[in-house]
């Protein structure tokens, strides 16, 4: 609930840039779908720029145009989302992508 209130607060100000730290972690699936759908709409309709931190490759695939993969505080790889997921260049990214169920 707190997470949703926070999100609503952030969106009420109609920001041009939205920073999201694991926005769907710990939400039940139905609320998660609602949050993702809301974000997708905002991105389209308000042309809002979103920077999102997530461990969930499904969320990343749904929301992100581009992805940066970080390890030990460094960016090891960046690219278009489908390229990162389907043709990862870095050894760490390859491990990460192949670990997905």
């Amino acid at each position, binding site marked *: 609930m707190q997470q949703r209130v926070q999100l609503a607060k952030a969106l009420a100000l109609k920001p041009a840039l939205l920073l999201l730290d694991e926005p769907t972690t710990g939400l039940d699936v139905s609320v998660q779908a609602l949050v993702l759908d809301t974000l997708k709409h905002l991105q389209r*309709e308000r042309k809002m720029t979103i920077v999102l931190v997530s461990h969930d490759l499904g969320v990343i695939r749904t929301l992100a145009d*581009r992805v940066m993969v970080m390890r030990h505080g460094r960016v090891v790889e960046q690219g*278009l989302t489908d390229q990162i997921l389907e*043709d990862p260049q870095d050894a760490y990214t390859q491990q990460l992508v192949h670990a997905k169920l």
Partner: protein
Amino acid sequence: MPLLQVESLTKRFYIDHLQREIEVFASLTFTLESGQFILIGGPNGVGKSSLLRCLYRTYIPTSGRALFTSTQGEIDLAHAADVDIALLRREELGFVTQFLRPRPRVSALELVAEPLVDGGMMWDEAIEQAKGMLSSFGLKHELWSAYPTTFSGGEQQKVNLARALIAPRRLLLLDEPTASLDANTRQSLQTRLAELKMQGVAMIGVFHHPEDIHHLIDDEIRLTVPQKDIEHVVD
């Protein structure tokens, strides 16, 4: 100037945990004009789909160039910045597969209208066009507002094709879009592709049953193993 000029395009994968490199295709060279349809042929596993993915930049080509004459000028798809490729995908490049990736709680109509909205159209107008596209692919009216996550494979396919072919594109990459389609849907797809070709859309396609679209084919590139040379079959 051709719409697309592919020069010595090569793709290899390096798989870290195997510590080895896998060659997919090498030194492909061909050109494509507006309104032209090139069929990519050859047995399974010679890299037909990989070639399409390299042109769409889902895969990063290992070497070579793919010069695309965009509305903004010439751009090398193999080396262009990610943001430029993202923009081209919204406006000029299309990729058609046989799989829909539905999102939870997003209706069929919305999914189909999205590419138009991304291109700058208002929702109302985009939804109107989406209705036309869904009916031309024969999706039952009562399913338009339903969520495709619950659809059968065949129904998802109709939504997928409508979504992939609704927005204007200058180059379409077709990755076996007719696989697992019923006869009526296959017919609608042929009609739509012929219409797009007439409008000057260029296409590169991989088809398991090329007889479905043989009247559209201008040229065929056969990939062979090892891919030293390519052979032009039709001209």
